[in-house]
């Protein structure tokens, strides 16, 4: 027997033995149809946009600092009026139908996802029970629940491009919102009252009525890129990330495209001003900035933003306000390249970050549960979701499996 003898000798002989054996074992070919099968899958898969991929972002220290921002208009009186209107609307809605208010904590419903065959499905994260909502041969993507949890908007590939659809959360009453095929369609976002959906197509802002009666483009003097969010609590304004002359910034405008004003300096690069998240009262937005990979919290109308910048080689990405607006969750990028979910108080001027759950080798998709008691997180290139305690714990590995190629979309229900 030469093998054990070889191992008993010097390491170089073991090296040669292993290399020779692997070389012999490697004399195989992949199955003839493997390439075709693989490419048929990639052909029906859209690459994720770069801004969704933390691998692209550059490394950088937990200190707080203030940065200057341009003057912004004062909204206090308007905000009070809007809150009163919203409260009145809630009373009216509450007397007619059991749906949650569009912002703030709600009961936890199902989670929407796209199956590998391009169907829209939902899963009960408590049991793992899945339901196909929109099946068939069409390639669908980007499912987004309405804020009352009753409907789902999504994008479907149609001949010549994309179209935006809405369907009841039960799968009934499929409605096409856009007539002509669109290109590069994404970022669907529901208005708080559920009557409109804003989205972008080829860098333009579009508004579609959810009854299918109208969809129109709003002409702006900048391109929309990567972020569109209706402002809580009434959705009378839209926050968009736009680019002018190649530089990115955040803009606030009325939903008809008028009264556009810059909310931040228009100084950002490809990965600045991303993952914009509104506090549920509509007073603050948080977003991500590079190259330091830090999180900025901006109070609307304030001259300065608060910057969360961790020390010790950590980086912060992907902020998300908790449903009650008191906490901010984000992805913490450790110096060893692993990622983990962190949570900090949103109002504390010297916040402490609570790390929760396992570290993930790649990026993390995550979001708050509508009731704000937990976070659902899943590592990219994984199909194993984790339920995390915002107060910090090892986390609970789910029994069910699903992939979320774009984001986690959790249905809000009436409490």
């Amino acid at each position: 027997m030469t093998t054990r003898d070889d191992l008993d000798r010097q390491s170089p002989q073991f090296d040669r033995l292993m290399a020779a054996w692997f070389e012999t074992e490697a004399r195989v070919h992949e199955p003839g149809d493997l390439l075709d099968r693989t490419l048929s899958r990639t052909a029906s898969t859209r690459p994720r946009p770069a801004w969704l991929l933390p691998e692209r972002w550059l490394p950088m220290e937990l200190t707080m600092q203030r940065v200057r921002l341009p003057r912004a208009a004062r909204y206090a009186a308007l905000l009070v009026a809007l809150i009163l209107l919203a409260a009145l609307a809630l009373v009216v809605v509450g007397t007619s139908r059991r749906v949650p208010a569009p912002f703030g904590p709600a009961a936890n419903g199902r989670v929407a996802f796209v199956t590998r065959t391009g169907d829209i499905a939902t899963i009960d994260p408590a049991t793992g029970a899945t339901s196909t909502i929109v099946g068939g041969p069409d390639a669908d993507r980007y499912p987004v629940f309405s804020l009352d949890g009753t409907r789902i908007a999504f994008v479907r590939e149609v001949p010549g491009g994309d179209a935006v659809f809405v369907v009841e959360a039960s799968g009934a009453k499929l409605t096409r919102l856009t007539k002509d095929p669109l290109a590069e369609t994404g970022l669907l976002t529901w208005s708080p009252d559920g009557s409109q959906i804003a989205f972008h197509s080829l860098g333009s802002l579009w508004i579609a009525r959810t009854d299918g009666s109208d969809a129109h483009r709003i002409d702006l003097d900048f391109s929309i890129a990567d972020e569109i969010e209706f402002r809580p609590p009434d959705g009378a304004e839209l926050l968009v990330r736009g680019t002018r002359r190649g530089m990115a910034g955040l803009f606030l405008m009325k939903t008809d495209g008028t009264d556009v004003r810059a909310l931040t300096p228009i100084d950002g690069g490809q990965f600045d001003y991303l993952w914009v998240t509104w506090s549920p009262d509509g007073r603050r937005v948080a977003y991500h900035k590079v190259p330091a990979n830090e999180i900025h919290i901006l109070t609307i109308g304030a001259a300065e933003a608060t910057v969360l910048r961790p020390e010790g080689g950590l980086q912060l990405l992907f902020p998300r306000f908790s449903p009650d607006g008191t906490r901010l969750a984000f992805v913490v990028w450790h110096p060893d390249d692993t990622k983990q979910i962190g949570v900090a108080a949103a109002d504390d001027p010297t916040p402490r970050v609570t790390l929760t759950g396992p570290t993930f080798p790649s990026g993390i998709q995550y979001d708050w549960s509508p009731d704000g008691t937990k976070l659902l997180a899943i590592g990219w290139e994984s199909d194993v979701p984790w339920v995390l305690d915002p107060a910090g714990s090892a986390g609970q590995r789910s029994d069910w499996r699903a992939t979320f190629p774009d984001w986690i979309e959790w249905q809000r229900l009436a409490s």
Partner: protein
Amino acid sequence: MERDLVERAMARDHDAFSELARISIRRLYVVARLILRDEEKAEDATQEALVAAWSHIAGLRDPDRFEAWLHRLLVRSCYREAGRSSRRGRIEVHVPFLEASEPDSSLDLADRDELERGFRRLDTDQRTILVLHYYLGLSLDEAADVLGIPPGTVRSRLHRAIVAMRAALEADARSRLTTEGRPT
């Protein structure tokens, strides 16, 4: 790897990505098969790695590091496949498609069988580091990059893998001696 192809693929050119996949798929499959010792799982791992590569191609910071990045995706896919229980309820006879080549003088069939049995006794971490180091010829730093762990951890993992391989081979030899010594 053609930098131009990688850059075009990063710009969502599926034709360019297809060419990259065509160039890479055999090597990926071979590596997955070496690590997983299972043809079906190797197919799945290869496919998943390439699909992940296409999905995340925009996240590649340096086109010149495409190959190392692809290896990282493949290793992750292999770990996931290794963690899944076999989906086959049948016994399969594996007949590898050997390329025409000169007879291998360095390893006889008994050696290969012994190495195969020993290698199968290793866990996924140990098999992976041995394949990266001895088949792909990656340095400790390069393997660390692929595995996403510090070079020092790679060094200790490689050392443990070699020791485990030795132990597995010795256990195999003892077992065969015992079997061969039994009266028939």
